């Protein structure tokens, strides 16, 4: 359905959790093809809508320069061709407000990506979810900012007053 794609689950950083499950796709990988896999790294990745006009999140085919996936969910040893693994991840408090998908890379011994899978399609439009970040604001900050600002203005008025008095003399 057309509207379905724009209705995403909304999760809150610092509060909600995501459970990610992954296993080897045996139709895509021939027997023994996973011999090099040593680790699996699962990442939170920005969807295209959150990359727009934000060059620091750009997708680049050269993986060294690629900035699509900036948050690690988990990095753990590869559990083999037959097992499936999962992790429950509480969204960290430094994750910004954006639309995301999850990607898992299989890494070899030298930490080079050799295979991947993701929760969305090739166009990165299906099955996305939103995360809402913490604001970082606190009532104490608001109060402190207000007090110091008022103090600055009060000091200014005080000095104006003093100078006017000096001139009158």
């Amino acid at each position, binding site marked *: 359905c057309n509207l379905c794609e724009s209705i995403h689950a909304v999760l809150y950083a610092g509060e909600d959790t995501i459970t990610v499950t992954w296993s080897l796709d045996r139709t895509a990988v021939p027997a023994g093809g996973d011999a090099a896999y040593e680790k699996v790294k699962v990442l939170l990745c920005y969807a295209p809508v959150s990359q*727009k*006009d*934000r*060059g*620091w999140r750009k997708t680049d085919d050269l993986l060294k320069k690629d900035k699509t996936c900036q948050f690690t969910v988990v990095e753990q040893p590869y559990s083999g061709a037959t097992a499936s693994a999962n992790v429950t991840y509480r969204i960290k*408090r*430094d994750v*910004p*407000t*954006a639309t995301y998908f999850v990607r898992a890379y299989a890494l070899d011994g030298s930490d080079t990506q050799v295979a991947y899978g993701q929760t969305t399609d090739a166009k990165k439009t299906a099955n996305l979810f939103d995360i809402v*970040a*913490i*604001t*970082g*604001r*606190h009532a104490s*900050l*608001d109060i*402190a*900012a*207000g007090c*110091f*600002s008022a*103090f*600055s*203005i009060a*000091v*200014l008025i005080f*000095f104006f007053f003093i*100078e006017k008095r*000096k*001139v009158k003399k």
Partner: protein
Amino acid sequence: MEGGEKISYPLGIEQPATAASTDANGMATETRFKMPVDSDHKATEFWLFSFAKPHMRAFHLSWFSFFCCFVSTFAAPPLLPLIRDNLGLTATDIGNAGIASVSGAVFARLAMGTLTLVTTPAVYYTSVIRSANGFLLARFFTGFSLASFVSTQFWMSSMFSPPKVGIANGFAGGWGNLGGGATQLIMPLVYDLIHKIGSTNFTAWRIAFFIPGFMQTVSAILLLALGQDMPDGNFRKLQKAGDKPKDSFAKVFYHAVTNYRGWITALTYGYCFGVELTIDNIIAQYFYDRFSVNLRTAGIIAASFGLANIISRPGGGLLSDWLSDRFGMRGRLWGLWVMQTLGGIFCILLGKMGTLSSAIVVMILFSLFVQAACGLTFGVVPFISRRSLGLISGMTGGGGNVGAVVTQVIFFKGSKYLTEDGITYMGIMILCCTLLIILIHFPQWGSMLLPPKSGATAEDYYLAEWSEHERAKNYHISSIRFADNSVREGGRSQRGGSSHSKHTVPVDALPSRV
């Protein structure tokens, strides 16, 4: 000029080290100055590491206050990688806020202490913003504080005698601009500290903004409590006592806007100082994103751009004075053109550097030339007009900010150009706009390519700003004094047969030939 020589006047008046003098009303004043002063009680020497009251004290209060304004105005750029994620900013939002941060000062003309305190709430407000709009407003109002540049320059020219105004302005301006570099070091360090203590990162950056807020508040209080407007006291007191005649603002304005040289320096200052402001806004994020260094490292690299101001801008002022000594005003103009053009060349190269170390080296060279050009600009500006000096300085300073606005709008807003290409194009624009310096021509001193008109004198040039009617009332006397002091701008050839010494001499009373 250097060395504190005592100078005797034709009328036999010596310069006392302590002035138990009489003021214009003939009343004895008990003022005692630690420094040697001229007849206006302006210091004739510049002692950088002294706090002598009131002159050097004014200098230190002035540059430090201006420094704090710079720290606040550019406190956000080194923390942008965090702020952009906390507020969900796009490249366009960041660009707009960068533009806003430098556009306020184009219009504001308030006095320093007032400006510094009035803009302080904007700094504290940054700690509580929630959106791209809040970010824009915070940077816009904080940026107003940079207008205190004009007051700094004006205050220095009230405290220091003509031969020393250049160096005083150069140091005050340069050490103030230093704030734009220091902040790139201070903010990431403060953030790191707060983050380590335990705050989450989206809160830690907000707390960090209290530091520039405190600095501004404290420096403004010191300035208002300890500083005075003029050597003899505060301006309003003197105006009431009748010592400072008021000039007609309409006339001053007219003579400022009809002097084409002021417009040229306004434009060219946009391509040295304006470029400096632009770089302060974009460079930390540039290094962070392009070379993948961490926040603290990006801050250190960005800081070294602004920190070069400690010597480069005053150095530019000194170079201007030295060139003038040998070649007169033409030397000043050539020096400005050469240094600013070299700055443009290194700017072009900066965008092309693909490795971290080469980019850092080119950036530092770029900073030295572009900041020296700022110092050299204000070696020329004081001579453009005598009557409208304040306004011309203001126009030039404002032009600097306009240049920053225009450059950021064209090249650094949104995602139209990659930042490295924007930097290269900005360099090309510097080269083109700097060519206009060739057009600055003084009838009495010439221009870069043309010699002076024979028979034209400095006196004619400065007296042209006063009408017959005004001259009859002797309003123009200080312009005559200034014209005599600028004899040196004719270069060594013009000075050949003159009996004046190599150094410009503040003239005490009416010149004997009038």
